[in-house]
């Protein structure tokens, strides 16, 4: 199966944009939608917990996916002279940094 010539640009930029967008969405609670598991109800945007907890994880991923998809598609339109110099290592360096950042952000769970 052949892939478009710009696919490596899309893949690298998507990995970077997804990771950065996801940690921002979690920290700022930018959820595209909310799920209320006790009620089996979906709601648009960030909603407060109703009868039971509210889940934002799906909404964070949806927001991150839309953002990362848009940024990665936009990067595919950049001239090849610019994208040729894109380091493939960004596709792992940024996600690893964000994983370490999550360990730091969640340290409260382990220091109680």
């Amino acid at each position, binding site marked *: 199966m052949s*892939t478009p010539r710009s*696919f*490596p640009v*899309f*893949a*690298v930029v*998507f*990995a970077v944009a*997804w*990771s950065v967008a*996801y940690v921002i969405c*979690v920290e700022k609670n930018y959820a595209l939608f909310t*799920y209320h*598991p*006790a009620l089996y109800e979906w709601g648009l945007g960030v909603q407060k917990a109703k009868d*039971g*907890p509210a*889940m934002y*994880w*799906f909404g*964070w*991923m949806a927001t*991150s996916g839309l953002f*990362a998809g848009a940024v990665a598609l936009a990067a595919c339109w950049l001239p090849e002279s610019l994208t040729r110099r894109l380091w*493939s*290592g960004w*596709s*792992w360096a940024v*996600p*690893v940094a*964000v*994983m370490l950042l*999550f*360990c730091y952000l*969640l340290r*409260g*769970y*382990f220091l*109680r």
Partner: protein
Amino acid sequence: MFTVLLIVHGLLAVALLGAITHQTVSVWSPARKPAGSFIGRFRSVPATSYANAIVVLYLATALLGAIVYTEYRVVVRVVLEQLDMWKTNGVFELKEHFAALGLGVLPAYWYYWRTPLLGEHARTRAVLTSILAFVVWWNFLVGHVLNNVRGFGS
């Protein structure tokens, strides 16, 4: 129904764990000659042929995990909070975030495992595989421990 989904989720995770571990070992320590020992055969698998299966298994495992997560949020997590089991909740928080970050690297992982493999991307390929291996191992072990903490079917 959630019990069935949890079991299927676990079985898919086992298959994913095996595939990604084979690939990770073979990418960091490829066999240079015909393997005779168990370890040698373990690392001499054709790593390229695992990539598509790993992407499909990761997506399927994550999808089932996301469905099961809704039940976990109501039935398990609330109890863990009431019992002040903060470390247990913390490792699960990491599990959900690592799983999400793993989804984001899948396109790059898939692309850099496409044949013919380019030598200039060997390190990127190896590290992306290792990230996924770490995420899969972490999530498998945390899921297993959490299942034991709450008790199956309780």
